[in-house]
């Protein structure tokens, strides 16, 4: 059941790694355009296909972050303890969480095959400024559902930002709430940071 997750993560990373020139676009157009561009980019890049973590990290750093509100991503995954976390703790949480997710992208990008992405539906989320853009990744096997939750970041920013991704039914960022919660109960924010650091170290080997 994780095969779809893997393939979809590939596309997520692909989508994330796109030029920042689309900031003003409507959410569905944004998702569609970057999906296409990035699948092409990943296919053309031999180093990414080989799973070069450093290269993907660089790509994400320069091109992804403009389209993702990583503060909202981290904050919503951490939940209430975020409020009392110090700026240094918040910064560390973001860095480590980002590293964790990017490492996943690196592995997944190398799996990218002959896929196309179709935007199937865009719907506003009732009672919020959020929008969910639904897409389908079509390749050889069964199509994979891949949805994006976007929001306007802040009052000063008119661009749509991705705040969560749904892979085959699972909202990835929201799912981390139940991954983080036991760590936070056990060791507080510092405990969670330590766990993430440890996890990233192990994965880097």
């Amino acid at each position, binding site marked *: *059941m*994780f*095969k779809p*997750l*893997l393939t979809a*993560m590939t596309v997520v990373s692909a989508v994330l790694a796109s030029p920042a020139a689309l900031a003003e676009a409507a959410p569905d157009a944004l998702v569609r355009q970057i999906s296409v561009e990035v699948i092409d980019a990943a296919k053309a890049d031999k180093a990414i296909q080989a799973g070069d973590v450093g290269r993907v990290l660089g790509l994400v750093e320069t091109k992804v972050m403009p389209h993702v509100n990583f503060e*909202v991503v981290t*904050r*919503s995954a*951490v*939940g*209430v*303890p975020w*409020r009392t976390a110090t*700026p240094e703790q*918040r*910064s560390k949480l*973001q860095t480590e969480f980002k590293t*964790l*997710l990017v490492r*996943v992208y690196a*592995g*997944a990008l190398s799996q990218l095959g002959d896929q196309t992405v179709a935007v199937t539906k865009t*719907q506003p*989320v*009732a*009672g*919020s*400024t*959020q929008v*969910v853009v*639904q897409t389908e990744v*079509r390749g*050889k*096997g*069964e*199509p994979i*559902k891949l949805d994006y939750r976007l*929001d306007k*970041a*802040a*009052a000063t920013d008119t661009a749509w930002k991705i705040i*969560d991704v749904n892979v*085959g*039914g*699972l*909202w990835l960022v*929201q*799912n981390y*709430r*139940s*991954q*983080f*919660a*036991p*760590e936070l109960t056990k060791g507080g924010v510092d405990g969670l940071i330590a*766990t*993430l650091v440890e*996890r990233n170290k192990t*994965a880097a080997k």
Partner: protein
Amino acid sequence: MKPLLALRWALLATLVALLGACATVPPGGPGGTAAAGAAPAAAVAIDPWESFNRKVYAFNDAIDEAVLKPVATAYRDVVPQIVRTGVNNLLGNIGDIWSAANHLLQGKLQDGLEMGMRVATNTFFGLGGLLDPATGLGLTRRSEDFGQTLGRWGVGTGPYLVLPFLGPSTVRDSAGLVVDRSANSSILPLSSNEQYGVSALELLSVRAGLLGATQLLDQVALDRYSFLRDAYLARRRDAVYDGAAPMEVFEDDAAEPPAKPVPASAPASAPK
């Protein structure tokens, strides 16, 4: 064949035990539970047998590490891609017949007919299912099993359950699995030995396809057990709704002002 026989008995025994237990546990609503992103408290509600499940999970993991994964890796490395694809297509084509039936059982006439067309196309123009020309013609595989059909009919998932050898499931999906199994064996009339052979090949084929994914799980999850559980439940819920599950709330309870899902004023002190 002995281990497989044992497997079948283990599965049957578990299911019998479960159907008994089923009566005492209130089932969830249609489509089960919003486990994904739910607070840990909700996880307890859907997973009352967690300590038992974790043991089965550890057992499965050990078996996988010792036997299934090495065999699947060898299968992937030794058997050429074209053969593996052929095996996948053949098994998939048989599965598609039952998927078509399930679409119809759920009252989805068009999907049922399309899957039927798919089977016919692949059987007659794809060398009996060895090739998959139907996908190229836009007849995409949309798998449905009896667990999904039960969900569509309003049957709740019941508690989460890790089956020996087979992995994540729920009480509802386990019951569905029994029906799926017998349906598939009546589609393909084989002696029981041949049936075991097909099942083993199926398992191998699925596991080989998952080799990359389990590696991903190691990297992405803090707790593999709960990650897999939440992913399974979310995915099944989504499958019952055919990808159009009711929207879930985006929990962002640390946003300022608090208790608002919309981060209208993200903290200006955002660390960079």
